[in-house]
């Protein structure tokens, strides 16, 4: 081989590294060859992959058998996605997989980790297969890498989306649970508030209360904030606004269980005490509400 020939071959090889395709072989053909290779060595590569997963201590929340079963279906979906270049099926599978494994405490880095491991295992097998033909290896990798990266991306995004969906759902559930508007008597509602109130929760409390006043036709509402240790100025202002808005709907609000800190906050923002009806504890609040509604509680002994 002359020096000149060598140089030109080097040049060609380098240009391939840069991503240029040789016209004679379309990337789709290369992909087909690649897929055939992966199908042929399915058992071997899958085992190698599962071994690597165990080595790197990923998916520790799952048993060996489970990992193997999942690995098989991931492997097959992976090869299929490479072959068809259609990512919808893989996306659906990733979502489905996430749904199953998120409750078991599998973390994002594990899912991304195993997909990247598979990518590496497959790339290694390609190196091994084409080690004698450097040019071909380059072209195969050109076809393989973008597809593999896209697959890793798809799986990771699918997993994260599923997680976010679960988180959103739970947030919604917590929020719903944390603001019960309860009817204790005809036309009397209580709204016990427990925990920290942030502006978002405050807004939701108001919405639910005003809607509750309308649907239950309430005349008196007792808001009990015994379970709220402190509130900032914004939320305190919001509370005052809620009281005023309730009045516009024709309902009287009684606030009970103000802690010294909250009393301090309300005094600091200069609340108009004429508008704010407060009673020390929930019992006192309900008693006053009953008086406003014209109820009188008597023991059976008194009626005799």
């Amino acid at each position, binding site marked *: 081989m002359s020096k000149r020939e060598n140089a030109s071959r080097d040049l060609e090889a380098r240009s391939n590294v840069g991503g240029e395709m040789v016209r004679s072989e379309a990337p789709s053909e290369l992909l087909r060859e690649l897929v055939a290779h992966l199908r042929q060595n399915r058992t071997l590569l899958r085992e190698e992959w599962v071994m690597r997963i165990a080595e790197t201590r990923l998916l520790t929340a799952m048993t060996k058998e489970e990992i193997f079963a999942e690995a098989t279906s991931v492997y097959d979906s992976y090869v299929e996605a490479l072959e068809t270049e259609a990512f919808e099926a893989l996306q659906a599978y990733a979502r489905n997989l996430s749904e199953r494994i998120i409750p078991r405490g599998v973390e994002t880095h594990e899912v991304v980790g195993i997909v990247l491991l598979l990518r590496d295992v497959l790339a290694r097998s390609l190196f091994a297969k084409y080690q004698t033909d450097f040019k071909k290896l380059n072209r195969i990798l050109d076809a393989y890498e973008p597809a593999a990266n896209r697959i890793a991306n798809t799986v990771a995004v699918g997993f994260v989306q599923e997680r976010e969906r679960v988180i959103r759902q739970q947030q919604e559930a917590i929020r719903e649970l944390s603001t019960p508007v309860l009817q204790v008597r005809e036309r009397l509602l209580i709204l016990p508030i427990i925990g920290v109130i942030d502006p978002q929760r405050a807004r939701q409390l108001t919405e639910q209360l005003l*809607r509750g*006043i309308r649907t239950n036709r309430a*005349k008196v509402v007792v808001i009990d904030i015994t379970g709220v240790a402190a509130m900032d100025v914004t939320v305190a202002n919001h509370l005052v*606004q809620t009281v005023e*808005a309730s009045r*516009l709907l*024709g309902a009287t609000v009684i606030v009970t269980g103000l802690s010294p800190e909250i009393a301090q906050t309300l005094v600091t923002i200069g609340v108009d005490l004429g508008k704010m009806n407060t009673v020390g504890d929930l019992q006192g609040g309900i008693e006053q509400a009953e008086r406003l509604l014209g109820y009188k509680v008597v023991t059976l002994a008194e009626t005799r």
Partner: protein
Amino acid sequence: MEVPILKQGEVLIATFQAALSDADLEHLRRGLVQQVVKFRSRGVIVDVTAMDVMDSFASRTLREIAHMIRLRGAETVIVGIQPEVAFAMVQLGLTLEDVATALDLEEGLAYLIEKFKNID
């Protein structure tokens, strides 16, 4: 669009049909304040159930109506403010101070009848 004013016993009822222009509101104020003495009414109910926006002019006019009618010897109650409207009003500082409010027409009538009883 003008607001019809209905007479029901001792009470006048004005029901807003839709969002009103400033001119309509002033027209309503004039009408109510005149008729409350003409019909010897003891109470006025303004029903705003159909209003999904309450601006500062509307809110101020409602308050003026209530105060003028009190000076003319009758009670006013505003009924049917929507929850969202109520909160929006409060945030804008339009709280209709010293104006009676009630959930709906039925509640407003009950409020007035109770009030008449106390006076009698």
